[in-house]
């Protein structure tokens, strides 16, 4: 009710409630101040593949961009890639021995060679399986941008830029359902995809190898926490450590998070001590140099989401206990955090500059946490159910009409179990005074007074209690659009589009209003090559310049 004024004006959607009308009730576009977002196409899993276990797992999507071009043999730009090139080349040479040049292609593009030890087991099986055949398309060279998503007991791979609704590949897990996954575009030895299972098991694989393989099983995988030997509770979230040299973290439903390093033996028992106090944060390191190398006990109950800041300095966690926690990753120290209004927190995301963290949860609120102020600076009200996905739009450029540089506007989005996508603007100057009062001015929300404890800076490592409703400035969404018929699970911003994902495994791709007039200076953007691919011709030539 609070936001009805703002959202109704902008909303082109059918009312989000009440009628059970299926897809026809959903509009294929929504309006924003900058223009119309249009439904470009949809991706889903093949019908009839659903097992009875389906529904217990929620679909998540990972966007993966395979950068390297197959036909580009050793070339320029090795300097920027630095050490990483060594590993790839090592793998490439090994691969090259057993296979044709096509298989070699995925590691091409870099000079220099610094052979690495410890990769031999993987390389061996890798060589055996990548025969260079591709399902239904002889010219397929596994380049471009892919969607990796889980449904039931399978992982599906779809080509983001093709119109095909169905995935190009499925990988089935016989024992347990995949829950979470993560992709590292800068992986050095080809293992760029992590998959965490309901059983607690974790795999790392090369995405390209999965694409090149014809089978329905995971190939050439490194298996961690086999049969839940270290921790048999559900994997809730996996993440590569930015600039972490192939290290990654795995969060579990029992409140523990593990750090894994590549090239470390994962067969033995790292034997972590018993957790004395379930409510306290504690870190233990493996006694021998084995995987996982460390265990962080974060909280009681499930860790529902983790996110690294872009520079890898901080990691944020959210969980069943309703707390957002921010850790200094290197120093293994709790920096700050705070509780939701009520209920569990389900998701979190950083702003690109590391200044803000968004969280969403069971109080139907989108929280904006300020790293500078170490407190919640705004609550976004507008969802009619739990908030399951949040993300900053890092491609958004605020209109610079007034030319005031300080008044930074962040654009972010959220999706909820109310089937809605909401877009928000966070304007820093507006936050000083509570923003946009409720139309109709309920006295409860006359937010002028800030309670005294509110302004006190809190010492490092303390968690803040839930603030009172009247103490936190409120935001209203810019747009509220009902995008699916099923509750949503996540959203992703790309340069050209917004991806919305529902729990049952349907993905919609909404193109941004207009097309970018020129390529942005952001050379690392996921979309730069995909745009080229649409206009095909100069794809190969052009792409090389994007590798810088």
């Amino acid at each position, binding site marked *: 009710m609070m936001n009805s004024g703002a959202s109704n004006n902008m909303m082109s959607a059918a009312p989000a409630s009440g009628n*059970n009308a299926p897809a026809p009730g959903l509009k294929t576009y929504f309006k924003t101040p900058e223009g119309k977002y249009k439904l470009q196409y949809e991706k889903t899993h093949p019908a009839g593949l659903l097992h009875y276990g389906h529904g217990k797992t929620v679909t998540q999507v990972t966007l993966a961009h395979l950068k390297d071009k197959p036909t580009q043999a050793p070339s320029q730009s090795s300097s920027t890639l630095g050490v990483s090139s060594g590993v790839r080349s090592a793998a490439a040479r090994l691969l090259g021995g057993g296979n044709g040049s096509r298989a070699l292609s995925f590691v091409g593009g870099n000079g220099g060679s610094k052979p690495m030890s410890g990769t031999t087991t993987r390389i061996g099986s890798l060589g055996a399986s990548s025969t260079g055949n591709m399902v239904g398309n002889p010219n397929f060279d596994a380049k471009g941008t892919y969607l990796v998503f889980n449904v039931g007991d399978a992982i599906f791979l779809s080509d983001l830029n093709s119109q095909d609704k169905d995935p190009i590949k499925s990988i089935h897990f016989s024992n347990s359902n995949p829950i979470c996954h993560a992709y590292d575009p800068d992986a050095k030895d080809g293992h760029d995809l992590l998959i965490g299972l309901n059983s607690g098991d974790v795999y790392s694989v090369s995405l390209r190898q999965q694409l090149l393989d014809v089978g329905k099983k995971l190939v050439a995988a490194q298996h961690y926490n086999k049969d839940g030997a270290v921790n048999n509770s559900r994997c809730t979230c996996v993440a590569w450590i930015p600039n972490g040299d192939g290290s990654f973290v795995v969060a579990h*439903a029992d409140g523990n998070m593990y750090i894994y390093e590549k090239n470390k033996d994962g067969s033995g028992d790292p034997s972590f001590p018993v957790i004395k106090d379930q409510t306290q944060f504690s870190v233990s390191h493996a006694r021998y140099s084995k995987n996982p190398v460390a265990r962080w006990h974060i909280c009681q109950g499930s860790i529902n989401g983790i996110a690294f800041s872009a520079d890898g300095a901080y990691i944020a966690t959210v969980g069943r206990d*309703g707390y957002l926690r921010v850790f200094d990753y290197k120093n293994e120290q709790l920096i700050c955090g705070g509780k939701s209004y*009520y209920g569990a927190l389900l998701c979190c995301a950083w702003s690109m500059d590391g200044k803000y963290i968004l969280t969403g949860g*069971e109080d*139907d609120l989108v929280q904006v946490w300020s790293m500078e102020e170490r407190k919640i600076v705004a609550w976004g009200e507008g969802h009619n159910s739990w908030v399951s996905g949040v993300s900053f739009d890092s491609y958004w450029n605020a209109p610079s009409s007034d030319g005031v540089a300080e008044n930074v506007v962040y654009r972010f989005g959220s999706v909820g*179990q109310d089937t809605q996508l909401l877009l928000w603007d966070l304007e820093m100057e507006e936050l000083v005074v509570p923003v946009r009062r409720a139309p109709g001015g309920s006295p409860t929300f006359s937010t002028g007074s800030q309670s005294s404890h509110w302004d006190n800076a809190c010492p490092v490592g303390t968690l803040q209690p839930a603030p009172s409703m009247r103490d936190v400035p409120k935001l209203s969404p810019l747009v509220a659009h009902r995008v699916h*018929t099923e*509750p949503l699970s996540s959203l992703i911003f790309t340069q050209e589009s917004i991806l919305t994902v529902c729990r049952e495994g349907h993905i919609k791709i909404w193109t941004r209003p207009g097309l970018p007039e020129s390529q942005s200076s952001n050379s690392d953007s996921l979309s730069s090559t995909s745009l080229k691919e649409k206009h095909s011709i100069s794809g190969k030539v052009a792409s090389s310049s994007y590798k810088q």
Partner: protein
Amino acid sequence: MGVAGSKLEKALGDHFPEGERYFGLENFGNTCYCNSVLQALYFCVPFREQLVEYYSNNKNQGDGDENLLTCLAELFTQISSQKKKTGVIAPKRFVQKLRKENDVFRGYMHQDAHEFLNFLLNHLVDILEKESHKAKNQAVANGPSNGQVNGVKQEPTVTWVHKYFQGILTNETRCLRCETVTARDETFLDLSLDIEQNSSITSCLKNFSSTETLNAEDKFFCDKCCSLQEAQKRMKIKKPPRILVIHLKRFKFMEQLNRHKKLSYRVVFPLELKLSNTMEAADSEYSLFAVVVHVGSGPNHGHYVSLVKSHNHWLFFDDENVEMIDESAIQTFFGSAQEYSNNTDHGYILFYESIVADKC
């Protein structure tokens, strides 16, 4: 049954809570509506303790005074004083008394659990009020007795059922002509909420207390203007109850069909909840401790089970059977996002207890 009991004991192992009893309730032909509600009430610990105390204070009275209150007190005492930790009990006397007291529940038809809860709580209130009147009259004869202040004209008696379950709503109506706000207080023992597809309890509560405009055919008689006027109306919670019972209106009367239809909407309920639209300064916080679940696709048949939190474990009560379940399994009772679904187990009555009240 014995096997099921030992299974539960095994599952809990050393964690079996000291002094706690987990007993299934026998079904006497479609009495699952009753069993599911009784389990939820039994695990409303302050309420249970009150009943057990009541039983021990009144057990010497003859059978002539038997009523639903004494039967319930007896049943709860019977469960809590079992030698075994788990097993099955037949709530025979209670069900017999219930059928005698109210002919709605007399037959062997499927009954509405919320109607039963409502009837039971109001009936307990009636009995307690009558007893209190009796005590008062005796007190006039015998001098002051405990708990009763003599000589002071009392407000309507506040029984311990009120103490736990009663909250106060304020119905505020603002005349749009003279701006006068008329406030009327109403008491409630539970809140019945309209539900929407893919929404949350938070959202349903917001809708419940959202501002409604009275106009056209539905104008408000303003005492100051002495005429029918357009007005804005809203419900606020003036006094939140210690035990907040939320009833989801899943059975909707369809006029075209001239019968009730079950809404299987997915309505998510958090394990912790706050009421933000109260008139008090602090947002009162609640924790979910029981859910009565309706199983089935229609209103006139089906089954009731309950989920109960006891000592940080969640238990699943299905008549005679008691099982442990994981907290994460609760989400399977939210409802279905699509109309036609195999999932027919839907949360119907939610029991939240105030966290603050425990500390006081």
